[in-house]
């Protein structure tokens, strides 16, 4: 029999694309899950909804799970939805034109060229900010970060209020298309060095309580992620068809390019202890989250009883 399940995701961006494909390709249904997908304002809001008990499952960045754990909330990660960074850095047209460094130069040189520029990111704590900021600090590059809603970034880029934006797709695409910007550092393509790149952009999560009382549902979810991985490998056209159902506003060529850029990242369901430790390490070195050092890493990962 099928179980109804409310799944809340953090945005309409492609970082959550795997979940939507799984829904529209019938993978969830095949595994006996009748999912209702709700889109929240941010990953933070998605996790909040999970905590409030109005959704059984949420998807958001691993740092949300850590932050919640630091405040005593027991949430476990069921699997990975998007490997690595889902965002990229786009420069405005006039700045890109002035650049002496070429687009194909090593990423460190491209980073150095950003010295003194004003770059917008969603927030000081966002998964897009932290890698870039850490990378810049490592190389003594001074970037002026300013924080704004991703939807406002292309407009700011066009009017020259910012020199560049660090955001996820499709905001970056709009930044390129509507404001004549240039894709400067491709985060989704894994251009950032390993030591600053996050392990994951989005993970599937639920409360410890729910996982304990519904091991069967959890099993089906994990199975769905594996099925997705397989489908991406075996049936790219089926995935694309599901994508055009999930994102009816996108045309064929956009779907193709989105698939090319993101599908590999959607197909990494395993989230390991090592990855959790790496994330915790980021959080601790930056001292962003009080009480993060008290977290027991094992408690964050769902373990099959």
């Amino acid at each position, binding site marked *: 029999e099928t179980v109804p399940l409310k799944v809340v995701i953090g945005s309409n961006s492609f970082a959550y694309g795997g979940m939507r494909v799984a829904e529209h390709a019938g993978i969830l249904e095949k595994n006996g899950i009748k999912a209702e997908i709700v889109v929240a304002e941010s990953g933070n809001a998605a996790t909040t909804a999970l905590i*409030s008990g109005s959704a059984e499952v949420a998807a958001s960045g691993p740092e949300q799970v850590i932050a919640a754990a630091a405040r005593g909330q027991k949430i476990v990660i069921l699997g990975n939805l998007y490997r690595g960074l889902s965002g990229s850095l786009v420069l405005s047209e006039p700045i890109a034109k002035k650049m002496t460094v070429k687009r194909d130069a090593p990423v460190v040189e491209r980073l150095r060229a950003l010295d003194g520029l004003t770059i917008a990111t969603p927030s000081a704590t966002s998964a897009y900010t932290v890698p870039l900021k850490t990378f810049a600090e490592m190389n003594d590059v001074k970037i002026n970060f300013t924080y704004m809603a991703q939807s406002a970034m292309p407009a700011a880029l066009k009017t020259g209020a910012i020199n560049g934006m660090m955001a996820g797709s499709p905001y970056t695409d709009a930044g390129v298309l509507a404001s004549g910007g240039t894709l400067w550092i491709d985060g989704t393509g894994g251009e950032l060095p390993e030591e600053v790149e996050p392990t994951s952009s989005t993970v599937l999560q639920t409360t410890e309580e729910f996982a304990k009382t519904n091991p069967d549902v959890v099993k089906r979810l994990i199975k769905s992620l594996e099925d997705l991985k397989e489908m991406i490998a075996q049936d790219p056209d089926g995935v694309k068809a599901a994508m055009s159902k999930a994102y009816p506003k996108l045309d064929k060529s956009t779907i193709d390019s989105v698939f090319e850029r993101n599908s590999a990242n959607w197909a990494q369901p395993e989230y390991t202890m090592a990855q959790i430790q790496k994330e915790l390490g980021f959080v601790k070195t930056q001292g962003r989250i009080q009480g993060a050092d008290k977290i027991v890493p094992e408690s964050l990962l769902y373990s099959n009883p």
Partner: protein
Amino acid sequence: MSMNTAAVNSRKATGAHEGRAPTQRKSWAVPLGLQQLLVFVSLLATWQITSLYFSLDFWISSPVAVYQEFIRWYASGTLLNDLRMTLTAAGSGFVIGSIGGAIIGFLLGWIRKLGDLLEPLILSLYSLPKVALAPLFVLWFGIGITNKIMFAAIIVFFMVFFTTFQGTRQVDRDMITNARLLGASKFQTWTRIAIPYSSIWVITGLRIGLPYALIGAIVGEFVAANAGVGYRIKEATSYFNTSGVFAGLIMLMLISFTLLGILKLIEKRVLYWQTAEVALGEDASKHIP
């Protein structure tokens, strides 16, 4: 000056004896609706031309593009469902918020001591930016329809509360005293004097609050939803579909417009005595004292 010109020039009198305007020989009314339509059409034209001329389509869309978006929205079959969702949340929120606001505003305005005592408290709550509460609301009320209703209700509550509170404080105390002398119980001075007296303020509160019920529902949908006009706007925003954003916004405007129209009809009924044209005529003339 001939009698004819005098008649043409004679204006609708306002005066120490106004209230009911005296009957005039002729009247030259330009239909207001037509004028408003003209203003509306010229605005649309300006929008279309600006958009075309400066190629601002991506940023401000254009009436034609918005229209096409509407058609698509309708054809996809989600329009009605979205409307239903948003209207349910906004409607319930409005009803809860305005009843609460009117009653509490009335009570605190009326019972002066209680009003003085609790005013700072309510003011503090009013000063809270509701948008900042959004995450807390998700925590407290989840992401279902309750969240949206509560959001709409709380915003409307304050709007209606404040105007009613202020209005009720203005009620002529002498009028009340006089009614008490005529034998009114405390309760009757409420129902027969204070409520009719402050009804204009309550209605102002409702007018101010009504669009905010929609805004509240929309913001609730921004925070978390999978359908509704607010969700469509957010979706359109994510794909930089400016026409879609405007289509959603215009949908909202149309809704609050309709609702405000209904409210205006109610207002006319409630405040009918301000403009009533009652037939003294025949009957009165017969009984000269």
